[in-house]
């Protein structure tokens, strides 16, 4: 499977198992994820997609009763779960954007710089400059440049979600995990975020969990199709969605798109 001329994958996941208390959520996941590409994770609700993101971002332990009960995850060839950089650095490098945008109780500027400022204390002037950079990146700068001091919660939901993306980007992550980032948004905001994903993939790897097969086609090059805590099918997005082999995946793809 591993030939000598392919670079080490970003993530190598082998037989990953996760439990919530007595309930098994992930039953042995096996996959590799490449750097600087968009990977979509598809599948019905409650089949462990978000759980996988939490494992990668090392925030699984914040969920009560949840634990990795077996298997390995390698990040650049090193054990992610016991990584020598430590949990905080891993979370900085592997950012996550959640389904529901949650601005922190502070100004728009401080929201953007919240994590970055913690990791790298910046002066006030530099902070403004940096904040502008990331707000421009997510296409929010023109909308908010006159009210950087007003609370982040005053923005519309779509703007809030882009603010949350800017907040993660300000950490200069290598990977951005996105957990159904558009499910709470209107079509217009969704389109903006999809454009952003396509633009970002030149710099960083993106793993996006989505319900929306059309969205997966639009933004991703690879995809993993989850069913009941296992990967039912994986490969190039177009191939998986055009010619699914697994009967249940077939049913879903046909039902939704056919």
């Amino acid at each position: 499977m591993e030939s000598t001329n392919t670079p080490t994958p970003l993530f190598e996941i082998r037989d990953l198992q996760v439990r919530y208390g007595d309930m098994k959520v992930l039953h042995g996941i096996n996959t590799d994820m490449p750097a600087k590409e968009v990977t979509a994770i598809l599948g019905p609700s409650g089949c462990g997609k978000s759980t996988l993101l939490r494992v990668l971002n090392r925030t699984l332990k914040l969920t009560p009763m949840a634990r990795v009960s077996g298997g390995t995850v390698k990040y650049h060839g090193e054990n992610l779960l016991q990584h020598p950089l430590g949990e905080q650095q891993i979370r900085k490098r592997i950012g996550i954007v959640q389904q529901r945008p949650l601005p922190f109780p502070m100004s728009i500027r401080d929201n953007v710089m919240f994590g970055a400022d913690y990791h790298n204390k910046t002066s006030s002037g530099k902070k403004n400059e940096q904040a502008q950079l990331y707000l421009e990146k997510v296409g929010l700068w023109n909308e908010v440049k006159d009210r950087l001091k007003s609370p982040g919660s005053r923005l519309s939901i779509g703007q809030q979600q882009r603010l949350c993306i800017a907040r993660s980007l300000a950490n200069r992550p290598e990977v951005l995990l996105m957990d159904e980032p558009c499910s709470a948004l209107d079509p217009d905001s969704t389109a903006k975020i999809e454009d952003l994903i396509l633009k970002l993939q030149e710099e960083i790897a993106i793993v996006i969990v989505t319900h929306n097969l059309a969205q997966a086609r639009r933004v991703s090059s690879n995809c993993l199709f989850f069913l009941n805590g296992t990967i039912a099918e994986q490969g190039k997005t177009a191939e998986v969605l055009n010619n699914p082999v697994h009967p249940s995946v077939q049913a879903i793809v046909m039902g939704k798109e056919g």
Partner: protein
Amino acid sequence: MTVRIGNTLYYIFVWICGLIGMALPVGIGLYLLINGSKILDISFLLDSPRGSPLGSEGGILPAILGSLSLTAIGLTVAFPASVGSAVYLSEFCSSLRLKSYSRLLIESLAGVPSIIYGLFGYAFFVVLLQMGTSLIAGGLVMAIVMYPIILITSQEAFDAVSREYREASLALGIDHTEWIVRVLLVKSFARILSGVVLAVGHAMGSAAPILFTAAVFYSAGGIRLSQPVMTLPTHLYFLVSEGVSFENAFGTALVLVIGLLVFNSMAMILRKNIQE
């Protein structure tokens, strides 16, 4: 037919109860206001008790100052202790069992009559630690009375901040202190403050914990930690039980109730702001 009469009676009974519920606070409030406003003026607030028997004339300034300083000491001790405890329980404590046991213990102890804490304070602070009947002994007892109240409201405030916030914050790789100080405490600030107001209202009004730990009938000296103080509730109690002056008692009661009313409406306004 009988069913319909029953239904009517049911409505009548419930409405009467509702009216009683409204009439009582309004009635008590008006009664105190009408009788107390006769005596209440600036000099009543700013003068010391005078006359013979003492307290039949003059004002209640030392009692106001005493109540405020007792509450301030209580809050200074209880606030950091209770908020810190709540932070530990909701943020650092990994044992669910320890969490629920301490919650049960604290909730049970919050309901213990304040006279019990007064007795404990008397035996422990006044007698054993030889503080004597003093502001500091009474302030510490106040802290004990306030501690569970603020702790419970803080914990509820923290619980009300969704877990997703915690995840979203820590997912950025920040440490717990940053999340606690810049997000958790900020988001729960108003609720904690309304808990503080409740505790302060409770402490200001109760005489039982300080009756034999801090209070005296008359104190000429200023406010000193090692000296006993006058307080509004105990002053009212002494005026009535010794039959000194019902007029001044009305004034004292009115000052106490209005003071607490201000505190309580602050709590209500805060709660409303959170809901919006």
